[in-house]
């Protein structure tokens, strides 16, 4: 196995885990307003639940 194969394999594994991570993160905490730089996840539903 030459060095290109080893590096390519490493890149492939990182890419695979990155995709899995993105999907899992989306399920736990969705992407926020993409129009802003680094907005917080809104907490309105938590407030609603608390008020109920």
């Amino acid at each position, binding site marked *: 196995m030459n060095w290109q194969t080893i590096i390519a394999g490493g890149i492939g594994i990182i890419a*695979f885990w990155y*995709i899995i991570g993105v999907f899992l993160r989306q399920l736990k905490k969705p992407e926020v*307003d993409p*129009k*802003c730089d680094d907005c917080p996840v809104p*907490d309105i539903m938590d407030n609603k639940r608390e008020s109920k």
Partner: protein
Amino acid sequence: MRTHFFDKKSIDSTNHPWVALLGNPNCGKTAIFNILSGLSQKVSNYPGITVEKKIGTVKFGKKSFNILDLPGTYSLSAESFDEQIVSDQVQNWAKGENPPAAIISVVDASNLSRNLYLTSQLLDLDIPVIVALNMIDRIDSQAQIDQNSLKTQLSVAAVVLLSAKLNQGLDDLKEAIVTVINSEEKTNHQSNWISLPVQNELKPFIDQQFVSSKFGVAHALRLVSRNINHNGNAAQVDSIRNSISNLGFNPQTLEATLRYRWIDEIVKSVQSRAKTSIRKISRSEQWDKILTHRWFGPIIFVTVLYFIFQSIFTWATIPMDWIQTGIDWVSAFVLKNMFPGMLRDVLVEGIIGGVGAIVIFLPQILILSLFLTIMEDTGYMARVAFMLDKSMTKMGLHGKSILPLMSGYACAIPGIMSTRTIDSWKERLITILILPLMSCSARLPVYTLLISAFIPPITLSGYLNLQGLTLVVMYFLGTATALILAKVFSKFIKEKTSSSFVLELPPYHVPIPRSVLRHVLIRGKLFLINAGKIIMAISIVLWFLASFPKVDQSITDVNPIHYSYAGKIGHAIEPVIRPLGFDWKIGIGLLTSFAAREVMVSTMATIYNVEATGDNIVNLREAMRSDVDVKTGMPVYTPLVALALMVFYVFAAQCMATFAIVRQETNSWKWPLFMIAYLTILAYLGALFVYQGGLLLGFS
């Protein structure tokens, strides 16, 4: 240091004092917040942009403080979700729960009386208030405001004149904030707007939890005015309402009557020419006579939209060619300077081929974003909402739905979040459900790839470019279907809530180039970096799936990609999508593009690059045009297949982030799963109708 989550823990953890920004919608709070904190929250020229709390840190000399931006509200009587955020927050402060060191009440100086209504409610809290008179550049020289007199009469900590647009007066505001934070003077605002007899009537309703008795009285009045039963004692509410009526007041409008009586006296004394300036017909009103005209208004709107979509094609051609040349150069450079091997193949066929196929669409994304930002910043978008209110209501929507729906042309996620301004849950839910049908910028690469490859660039009737027209039709198809479905959903979603539509039409502005440029660059950055990361990762993984297992080519004539993992998955899906005219490659694209719609293009590019035998990176358009079915000898992709695929993407559910945000906003999985189901069925049936219908009519 930046803090982005507003909660007690995060505020305390910074050890900085903090202040809150409050004001009416569209008075420039977020513009002030951005300048003070250096953040880039979205600002625009229509009400309801900020729908959640945001916090940043401000440095002034050696002093630092945190600043909280809240959604705009006209008063503390909440009518919608975003206003409820403010109302709840203020009530917590009134109970002594983590109150700010000061409140900055942002006031539109050109509309003093109405803006001071909220200020007068905030004064009841007995928290130091700084009145920031924004948009001072709009005040004509004859209607100047006496800031010292205003400060004395409101008995606030400071009145600061500023213009966020011209970046004037912000240092004065920071200085005033630091002075208030350092001061240990106890606040006791003289907001004597409520008469003693009325106060006495309200006594049984005053919540003892409130630290400030004035806020307690005002809160009790709001409950009584809105006929809200306190501790279930309806009879007592009726009795107090009768007593207030006997004092000569209407209980429903009592708070507004008393406060405005007080405010009008103040405004009269601090701004002598205010009434004269209000009577003048402004330039914005003159423009509105044409732009919101019953007949001319919609014609102008449609013309503007058509111009935008045509421009996306015509203006982007040259920069797209530059990017393509750059990608070819990078690919040639890697091929020339690296030894053959797996890493070189991943780089050229996977990363450069896949990501490069998407990057060339950046100019079109930027042009679309430029036009949408200009429409918002000029104030035209608010007029569109006003014009379409009647039609929206007929379709089971709300006038306020149009702004989230128009945001959906850029991206569904901010659109879904901005539905919080809609106070009726039913109308809000319907808007959320149809929002993914508005063609977002992620679909643009798919549309433009297929249009430029398969729709001839001919001109109809001398001025209608067929490629631009096809793009308009795709946008129109999504929008029209969204409105029809809104009507259908409104029949099935049973909820007896309705709401009125009150939208303040902001004056027309010439957009600030710096602000427009920042929006466009943010959109470009999001496309390149946020979407780019997942596109690159998928392209790499797909390259492996399309390249393995390796097949001995000496024993077969068929391209080895057909035996690869990707090929096997694609061929397994093919029978389901064959009736739509789609082959296995498109099948793979449909799967991968669930991460993001534009991944469809990079997927096709990666597959063609792996399939190609030569060293050079393939031109995706040419590769798709010249692809021939080995069994039939016929082209795999035809204009009819391209149309069917575009229609599929008009309706398709392919966007995971959208469904994640819908789950969050509806607080259940029921609605996102319903959306995925109905959009997928719609996409399938739409593409089937186009392809099979086209075949029946003799098209290929």
